[in-house]
């Protein structure tokens, strides 16, 4: 029996744009099994990033219900924060490393924020992970001193440092050259192989094949085919 990692029902999300509202996600229902690698695909503005942020508990849907590991989530801020910190890892297109922190500090950040380790332990685990990703030499550097690919690998390390059961990646190769992008995808596959559920957003058709399953979005709705 497969376990359900994510179960979304009737999710809706809209934003105010001037005097009107722009609907980013409309009546999206989605079911993702544990250990699955799902690719959310669609054109720019189709709502895939918004859907990902809702699944990652960064945003609340206007309506609909979201279950993670069978539990309804999103209403309690503290519970959502705990889920984000301990069970969800995020990788963004813009890397989003904190510029004032070194690479190892960036990677250790989730452990410290969630009080999962002491500072020393967090930094040690951070260096271990960076070593695995071939970045240990860059551990003491600041993000701006690294290339885009290195930054994204560091961002993946930050996402994986808490050993999350769900990894969400929003256009992780969008700002990278093809070689770096391939390396990042390889890391995601490796994480998936280790049992992590991966949901990746991309509008690049070349990367669609990476997933076990592809979910197409258009105008905020799930469609059968692109």
């Amino acid at each position, binding site marked *: 029996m497969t376990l359900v990692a994510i179960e979304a029902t009737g999710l809706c999300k809209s934003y105010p744009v001037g005097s009107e509202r722009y609907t980013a996600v409309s009546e999206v229902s989605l079911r993702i099994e544990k250990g699955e690698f799902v690719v959310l695909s669609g054109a720019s503005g189709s709502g895939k990033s918004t859907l990902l*942020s809702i699944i990652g508990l960064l945003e609340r849907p206007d309506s609909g219900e979201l279950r993670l590991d069978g539990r309804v989530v999103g209403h309690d801020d503290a519970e959502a*924060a705990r889920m984000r910190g301990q069970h969800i890892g995020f990788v963004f297109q813009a890397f989003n490393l904190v510029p004032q922190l070194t690479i190892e500090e960036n990677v250790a950040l*989730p452990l410290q*924020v969630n009080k999962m380790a002491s500072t020393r332990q967090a930094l040690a685990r951070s260096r271990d992970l960076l070593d695995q990703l071939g970045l240990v030499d860059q551990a003491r550097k600041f993000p701006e001193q690294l290339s885009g690919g290195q930054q994204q690998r560091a961002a993946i390390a930050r996402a994986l440092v808490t050993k999350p059961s769900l990894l969400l990646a929003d256009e992780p190769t969008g700002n990278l050259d093809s070689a770096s992008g391939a390396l990042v995808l390889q890391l995601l596959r490796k994480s998936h192989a280790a049992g992590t559920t991966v949901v990746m957003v991309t509008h690049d058709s070349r990367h669609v094949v990476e997933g076990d399953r592809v979910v197409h979005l258009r105008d905020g709705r799930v469609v059968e085919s692109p």
Partner: protein
Amino acid sequence: MLVLLLRDAWRQGVALALHGLALAVSAFLVVLLATIVGHLAREDAAGAPCSGDVRRLELRDSSGALQLAPRVATATFDSGSSLRTYVLGSQRLVNPDAATGESTFVGASDGLLRALCLSNQAGVHNTNLPPGPRGFAGNGVVPPAGVQLVSRIQDFRGISGVGDGAVWVRERDVPWLRLDPENWDEVLMVERGPGQSWTDIEEEVDAFVRARPGLFSPGTEARWVLASGIDNDALQRGVRGLVLLGLVAGGILALVVANLSVYFVGRHPRFAMTATVLSALGLSRLRLLLVAAFEPAFLVILALPAGTWAAKRYLEAQPGFGRVVIDTSPPMIAALLLCLGVGLVAWRRVAATRSSLRPGVGGFRRLSGRLASSLVVVQIAAAVPLVALSLQAGIGWRQAQASQTLEPPTNVWMARWQRDTPAPNGELVEAIKAIERDDPGAAIASSILPLPGGRATAEEAFVVLGGMRLPVARNQASPRFLELAFGVPHARAEAWLGDTRDGTAAAVVSRSLATALSPLPARFALDFSAADSDFEVPHDVVGVVPDVASMWTGKARHAGVVITRWNESSTAMSGVVLIQAPGVPVERFQRVARRLGADLGDVSNAGTAVTRSVQAERQMAEAFGLMAVVGVACMLVGLISVLRGVEVARALEFSVLFSVGASRMDVARIHLRSLAVPAAGGAIVGLGAAALATLLVAGRRPLLEPLVAPACAAALVSVAGLAVLCALASASRVARRNPMPALRSE
């Protein structure tokens, strides 16, 4: 292009308005300070009444022996020197001719004459003596027989009287200097004239001495003596004033610079989009610079004149300033250069970094944590002392209002005693004499004027007149004296003297004084009505120092009054009032008051009441209050802007923290914690500056409660409270901020 610029300005309208306001109030403060400084400087240069203008000069020969100054003075006057030189005593006082009873005082000074003149006038506020050479004739007063003018002493406000073989001199608002009677012939007091420096005067006197070798022993040199209680005090006041001014000006300039920094740092990225578009359209570097200067110039053109105009109007409404001309005084130039420098640096940065500008960059992205922290420190540190000064002045004003019952501005402390058991006047006299013996500097004690009450004997009575204590015994009082001293008509005085043997002298004097010094009874009536109904004023005022009259005008140094409970069945007095005149250090007054109270013993009711010029306190409260209001306004604008900048600059950081598991409360807490350190730093610096500033102000107004601690504490609490409110509002915005825009931005 204009449309684009206007649209950019319109989009930032609120920020523009806020920073324009901050700039305007900053300009207001800078102009205000600069003009006040310029005003004071001009006043000082003109030789207007200001502290520290009198020094004492000693002439000593090579052996160190004192040379006679009077000869210098006489010759100086004869030579038509420009020096305003005054000599106290060219000869010893001639003792009163007790045999004839005609000369009740000898020696004279302008101050004494003025006191006499004033005491002759019912309206005691007339200080406009006739122009021309001062002297008895000049003042329209016929010199009494036996009075010898020691020299032609001109308009020297510092000499008030002689007595007891000693000379008391004063400079405005500084304690009396009692000159040693043994050396008084050698005392030369010099007042600095307009445009003169002390060095010039010293050289002039030295040249004079060298040119007249026959008059002086070889090697005679003029040496300035920082007469105790005169120049030191003045110097200290000057230094204190400068430090205070520096503190206030520094705080205000810090606010100005901080606000300008916030404005330019915030504007730099805001202008990024416009700059990028214009650059893409092919605008040259120079034109881009000019475009970048558009908004600041717009701001400066609007704000600076507005602030300057407001400061000018405010100052012109203040007494003593007249028409204010905004001049180019050094502080003003420095402030403008500073503002210009900040602006140029910012514009240069905009022009230099145009290639790195990318569309979509939010405002304040370049606001570094260190700069933000510094700005928070500066804003709070600058606001605390301004608010503390305002609170101190405001409370002082209320304090003065509560205690002031008489309009003429003067500083008066009053200590009162009431005895349960009436004591003879002689006891008080002895107590005063003992204090004078032990504490010669306690001028206030010698001012006490007990006049005979009831069946008091003549030997117990004396009067102090302008610092000269004279025996007023039946065998010495003359009609001439009464006429001169108290304005008693000659015929009346004769009649009064005729009645002295039956004990009504005091009553006559009392009535005369009550007429001449009409404000005094009213004051006492108010004071006593609240405290003790046993005192029935003015009927119980049996003696008043004539110099009280000039005390109200700020010309005299000390005065005293004895309130005697007229008791037909007793020779006793039941109360004493001791008035401290302007400038007498409160410590000295309190020491004398304590001593007198202790010597009298059996004191059942001793207390002090503080009065002071309400007008002066009100002006101080208004000025500091105004500075505090605009200072706090600047602080709020700056602080809110900095916090908004921090929110923008740290948006990514907060969003990342949020994404890795921090709750909204956690993020807000982190934001607040990061603000706590600079805020605490600002509070500490501000508290130190506030303590220093309030101490300096307290030193300049010794007659009021210093209020250093409460003012500083209240200022800290209020400023910290405002800062906390700003920080909480900022934390709330941070907590409610949607993290996605920052996380998605490229």
